[in-house]
């Protein structure tokens, strides 16, 4: 019989026997997959509190494990290992080492909020996914994900100028993630556009990339936002029992100049 959510069980704990008779019943082949029992002792009792201290994680305690989020999830449909319900369960149980098995895919949540739409308990699983990704990065379990780098590049520019210009964001993001700008599909898009674009449009695009758009009189908003982000990030680090020293990339995110 197929085991429900079999992917959740560690492969080494799945035992299949070609030939097996249990209590006089032949359970060979199809019926012979068993889950080896095991004992978990390394609970992190503070895990739920830590996640709840990060933005988005506030309502994790409400979850009653109905599974609607996973059932509705965009990424789960592409990769069955992406399982918000299960991760929320692990956090609530404090099963940190189990959670860490999936640390490299949690950031892939695309923020579509299908889970939030489906959740009967207002957990906002989308927010929990963001809190989990932050937690993994803050605790040093994962490197900064490409998605976090993109969020930082984008937000830095908004805080800096009040507005963004897409060309600059793409360039900075590619540079920070070490990707070449000459992607085949990017060149192909440019080629298709150039076939039809009139000169005026090209000039406009060119101008935008030289003269970046900005909001006037933004300096005080910029200062206020930087101060707030720095305070917030320090509070989060305290909540996770980390030193408040903000390292380089986070300074960048907050727009704080390096010492």
């Amino acid at each position, binding site marked *: 019989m197929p085991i429900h959510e079999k992917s959740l069980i560690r492969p080494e704990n799945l035992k299949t026997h070609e030939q097996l008779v249990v209590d006089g019943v032949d359970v060979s082949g199809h019926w012979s997959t068993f889950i080896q029992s095991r004992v978990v002792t390394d609970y992190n009792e503070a895990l739920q509190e830590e996640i709840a201290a990060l933005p988005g994680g506030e309502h994790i305690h409400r979850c009653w494990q109905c599974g609607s989020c996973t059932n509705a999830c965009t990424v789960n449909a592409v990769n069955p290992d992406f399982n918000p319900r299960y991760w929320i369960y692990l956090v609530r149980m404090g099963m940190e080492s189990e959670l860490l098995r999936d640390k490299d895919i949690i950031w892939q949540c695309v923020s579509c909020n299908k889970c939030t739409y489906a959740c009967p308990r207002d957990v906002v699983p989308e927010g929990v996914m963001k809190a989990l990704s932050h937690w993994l990065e803050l605790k040093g379990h994962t490197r900064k994900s490409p998605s976090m780098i993109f969020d930082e590049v984008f937000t830095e520019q908004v805080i800096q100028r009040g507005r963004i210009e897409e060309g600059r964001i793409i360039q900075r993001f590619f540079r920070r993630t070490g990707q070449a700008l000459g992607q085949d599909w990017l060149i192909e898009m440019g080629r298709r556009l150039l076939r039809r674009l009139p000169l005026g*449009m090209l000039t*406009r695009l060119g101008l935008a990339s030289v003269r970046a758009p900005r909001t006037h009189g933004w300096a005080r908003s910029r200062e206020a*936002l930087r101060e707030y982000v720095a305070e917030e990030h320090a509070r989060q680090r305290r909540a996770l029992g980390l030193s408040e020293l903000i390292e380089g990339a986070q300074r960048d995110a907050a727009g704080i100049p390096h010492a």
Partner: protein
Amino acid sequence: MSDSKADKYRKVAYYPGCALEGTGHAYDRSTRQVGKALGLDLVEVRNWNCCGAMEAKNIDPKVQTYLSSRVMSIAANEMGMDVVMAPCNGCYHNLKKAEYDLAHDADSAQVVGRLAEKAGETAYRAGQVETIHALEWIKSAIGEQGLRERIRGGLKGLRVANYYGCMYTRPRHIFPEKDAGPGSESTAKPHFMDDLLAAAGAQNVEFALKTACCGGAHTLSDSDMSTRLVLNILQAAEAAGAEVIATECPTCHSGLEMHQVRAEKRFGKKTQVKIVYFTQLLGIALGLSPRKVGLHENVSDVFAALQSRGVA
């Protein structure tokens, strides 16, 4: 729809957002042109700022709340407007989210108040403006009947898949006016764009992925995922018999365009369906020239497709 709404939406504060100044320029252009052709008045929000899109909230959610509230505050407190219209799903969603948070969460209101004070601005108070999407704007101010009366040429039965994306309907709680009985928009099966385009002479196909996600949040940071999600949408639209996919968001639109090319280049999967803003289709149906609605700025060659159908 009530006449009071029709009157209220005749003149609105217009929040184009950053994308409409860049990749979404054709959407800005066609929105303004359609507004003009329909006799509606758009007054651009003065000295606006970015709403934070889908990114700022991941640095801190209240940064986004402040950014969005500043736009609404200018419309209300500096321009005396009571409606803000945003054509971008991201902007629309963020303004609605800020509105909801400021009304329901004391902490958000406190932080935004503090930030606004430091910035030397008047803080936005929940309820000062009503934020609407371009779809609601045209649907309520003109309506299907009004549109039918103004059609010159029309869409001649063009087969359209209407694509709304994620942020127009989710999460549900920030859109209290949706799912609110007859005439209101549905979050499960939105239809405002379908209604408008049908009135303009399109034949809408049965399209199950109206509110599917294109992976826009990770379009560059997890591109293969986005390409797979977009390919799904494109193929479903083609299977449903669509000639074009109509969009109502610059991010959804450029996501579909970009990953259509990327699917071809990286996965060898070619799709024919063309991507076009609903305002471009409305403009054409109203008799505006393809150039006026910026058809030449689209990556997929929708101009040729419309021409061969005798629409443009």
